[in-house]
């Protein structure tokens, strides 16, 4: 989500062992939180829980009952981290996988993301950033268990081996659970040997997810499911226009409605607090609020896009300049200009925003599906008027995140704290956003325009590529602004995927115009790549057509120095049968893209009938380096392709007179099962450094589909969502 290259360098410099050891010892307390911890849930379900446990570091607890609990510092929002990160630890530990469970980490600096310096889930970085951390934690625990067993047997630890949760020496065997007491007395070793990858038992295998059973019987607890005795529920009336301020409200009808406890102004609007959601919601709808509509009351997205088009006519801030793109353009044998446009998008997680706050006079506990624990805790503390250490945040399962639950202002958390404060401590309250509230609440993927120009020489080789991007910055105002924007007059997230254009073209100019608009925007799954890949990969396709070349071969020729791009491109083309003819009315499109340290290529097969595009098949190739769980990777790539296809085919947020025009699934559709193509995922097997997987499946979907539409119709799609009437 943030400058990966920069952070990647930082994380590689980091001495993981130091981190791991620094987090060791003296930490045997602090992991149990009422209502949330595995201990509490096990107790409430009557299971036997070990009273003594071995905690060699912050990431693992081994019970006398043999249970191994991996404490995971990343949020589970569907991407599988509650399985893949425990796999890393359990493999090094030689644990019995059937005894392995997970627990969400509390907010504590020892759980900071090693690259980002805070607790966060984003940037498709959980596995690559946790790889060493979790392996070290497992190996350290294993070494201490072996040392404890060796001491007991009075043998050399080197003569012991471990397997499936036990230490062996000759014919002797002792289980990890039996060693808990002895191992707890030992000092963690300063250095541990990690496994040779050929000895991995779990890493690289399609291990079933640990969270599936509780997600098939309704037991999994999401933020919206958190229950506390005497908890009230609040629904908030928020401004209908961004920047509007509440002038006055009339609650004469609402306050006498059943179950209503309090109606009160909070900084974000007017909170209606009741005994239950439905009562709060019904009363909220009966409120009459007068708003000062403010500067955005005449805002229209159609005018905004016209302004973007005008802006793109002049050069922007230079981001990358190879050779002389403008000069080469004027001398090109054939040239082409094309403007690509994408709209605002909503994250539209299935679980609408919500947050539970238990506010007491001197402390506060927040329970919610957060991707941004450090920031959310700090913002909650500030709102509560309490020091950070008096505020704890319990991370529940996230019913989808896609970036929305890492809000730079912690909007949904801070608001809930203010609602609790309005009730007065002690107060327990859950704020639930309706779907309409969630969609209207802002923090969208920004709308963008990319004006592209390119030329080819007489032999059909691309000689220049120029892009001018126009859109809002998502990094401004975030904790990453200082690191990301320093010394630049552009936001790297606006041009990621453009600035690292891999194609061998001698003259390249990448330019950026930043737009200042009062619509709150932030990262959405695959961030800048969600729009730059569409522009780049459609335009390269257009240049191929201009050169009279096959779009796959045209790309190949320009990627000869990029073997991993080429690898996925070839794999997708080969598995899709690129050269095999398709029935009339059907066509194929191809796209390749690098994002989040992984390489991805898609081939889409579509049919076009009158006004409808139907995607029949998507063949996806992914190279994410050394991989941990191919089952989860396939799921993420499939899901990413569907996420990208939904945006390409259906999704657009528009504003008229400052008011959002789409507020639920009926006007902002998501791909449904009857529209879902057959999807194949092919994973490149290598031992390169691991890359991300949650986001790289998204960017290629839109350009592959749009290019396939061209293959069928001979017409180009330059605006999303795809409307055949707009094809040129």
């Amino acid at each position: 989500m943030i400058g990966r290259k920069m952070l990647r360098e930082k994380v590689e410099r980091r001495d993981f062992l130091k981190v791991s050891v620094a987090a060791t010892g003296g930490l045997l307390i602090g992991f149990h939180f009422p209502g949330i911890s595995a201990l509490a849930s096990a107790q409430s379900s009557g299971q036997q829980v070990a009273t003594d446990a071995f905690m060699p570091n912050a990431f693992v607890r081994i019970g006398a009952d043999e249970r191994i609990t991996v404490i995971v510092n990343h949020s589970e929002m569907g991407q599988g981290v509650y399985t893949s990160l425990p796999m890393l630890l359990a493999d090094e530990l030689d644990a019995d996988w059937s005894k392995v469970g997970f627990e969400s980490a509390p907010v504590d600096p020892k759980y900071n993301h090693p690259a980002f310096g805070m607790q966060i889930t984003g940037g498709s970085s959980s596995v690559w950033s946790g790889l060493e951390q979790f392996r070290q934690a497992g190996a350290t625990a294993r070494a201490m268990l072996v040392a404890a067993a060796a001491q007991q047997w009075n043998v050399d630890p080197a003569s012991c081996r471990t397997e499936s949760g036990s230490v062996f020496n000759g014919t002797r065997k002792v289980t990890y659970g039996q060693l808990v007491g002895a191992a707890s007395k030992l000092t963690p070793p300063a250095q541990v040997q990690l496994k040779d990858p050929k000895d991995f038992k779990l890493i690289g295998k399609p291990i079933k997810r640990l969270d599936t059973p509780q997600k098939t019987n309704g037991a999994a607890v999401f933020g919206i499911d958190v229950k506390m005795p005497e908890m009230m529920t609040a629904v908030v009336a928020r401004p209908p226009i961004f920047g509007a301020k509440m002038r006055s409200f009339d609650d004469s009808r609402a306050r006498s409605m059943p179950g209503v406890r309090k109606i009160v102004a909070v900084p974000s609007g007017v909170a209606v607090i009741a005994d239950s959601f439905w009562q709060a919601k019904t009363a909220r709808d009966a409120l009459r609020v007068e708003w000062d509509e403010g500067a955005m009351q005449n805002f229209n997205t159609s005018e905004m896009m016209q302004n973007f088009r005008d802006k793109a006519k002049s050069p922007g801030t230079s981001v990358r300049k190879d050779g002389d793109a403008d000069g080469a353009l004027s001398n090109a044998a054939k040239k082409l200009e094309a403007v690509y446009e994408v709209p605002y998008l909503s994250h539209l997680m299935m679980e609408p925003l919500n947050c539970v706050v238990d506010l007491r006079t001197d402390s506060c506990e927040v329970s919610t599906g957060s991707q941004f624990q450090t920031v959310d805790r700090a913002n909650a503390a500030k709102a509560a008027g309490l020091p950070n250490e008096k505020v704890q945040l319990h991370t529940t399962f996230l019913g989808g995140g896609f970036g929305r639950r890492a809000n730079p202002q912690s909007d949904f958390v801070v608001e809930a704290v203010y609602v609790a404060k309005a009730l007065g401590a002690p107060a327990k309250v859950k704020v639930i956003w309706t779907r309409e509230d969630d969609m209207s609440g802002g923090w969208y993927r920004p709308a963008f325009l990319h004006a592209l120009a390119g030329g080819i020489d007489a032999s059909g080789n691309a000689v220049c590529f120029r892009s001018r991007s126009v859109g809002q910055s998502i990094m401004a105002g975030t904790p990453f602004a200082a690191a990301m924007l320093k010394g630049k007059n552009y936001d790297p997230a606006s041009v990621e995927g453009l600035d690292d254009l891999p194609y061998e073209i001698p003259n390249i100019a990448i330019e950026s115009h930043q737009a200042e608009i009062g619509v709150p925007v932030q990262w959405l799954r695959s961030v800048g790549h969600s729009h730059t890949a569409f522009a780049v990969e459609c335009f390269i396709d257009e240049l191929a057509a201009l050169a009279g070349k096959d779009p796959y071969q045209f790309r190949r020729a320009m990627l000869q120095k990029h073997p991993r791009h080429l690898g996925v491109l070839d794999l997708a083309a080969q598995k899709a049968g690129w050269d095999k003819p398709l029935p009339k009315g059907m066509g194929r499109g191809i796209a390749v893209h690098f994002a989040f340290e992984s390489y991805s290529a898609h081939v889409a097969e579509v049919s076009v009938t009158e006004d409808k595009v139907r995607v029949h098949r998507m063949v996806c190739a992914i190279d994410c380096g050394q991989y941990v769980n191919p089952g989860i990777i396939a799921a993420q790539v499939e899901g990413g392709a569907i996420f990208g296809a939904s945006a390409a085919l259906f999704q657009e947020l528009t504003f008229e007179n400052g008011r959002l025009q789409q507020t639920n699934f009926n006007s902002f559709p998501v791909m449904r099962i009857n529209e879902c193509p057959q999807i194949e995922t092919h994973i490149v097997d290598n031992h390169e450094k691991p890359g991300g997987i949650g986001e790289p499946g998204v960017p290629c979907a839109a350009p592959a589909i749009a290019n396939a539409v061209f293959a069928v119709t001979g017409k180009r799609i330059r605006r999303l969502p795809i409307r055949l009437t707009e094809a040129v």
Partner: protein
Amino acid sequence: MIDFSVNGKRVNLDVDPSTPLLWVVRERLGLTGTKYGCGMAQCGACTVHINGEAVRSCVAPVSRAVGRSVTTIEGLSPDLSHPLQRAWIEEDVPQCGYCQSGQLMSAAVLLREKPSPTDEDIDEAMTGNICRCGTYPRIRRAIHRAAEMVAKGGAR
């Protein structure tokens, strides 16, 4: 008083009869496996059974359940033994998991009515259930797998 049964247990509640069944199930009965997603029968996350029929509980007033038998995800089986739950686990279907209760409840009606569903049957029965994570390919596989289990007599 509103009198009906949920997962085989009789309940008798003092609740406004126009309240959507979803919120009664979640907040009064504490059965939070049934999810809120849209409030307008668009996404299917709230799907439950009333007398065996799939119903979007976010728009069904609780009065509709009076004298009837409601089944929620918690009542699909006591022990994850329903063939769909077993197939869901074998195919590793869920990602974030939020929509899966509704998916399973819709699939359960499909499987009862069409023990060997075709892809078209699946499309028709499941099109009202949105999954934002994109688990559709695995949902499809899991339904076929569950159908095979039933055919082989593996079902309860």
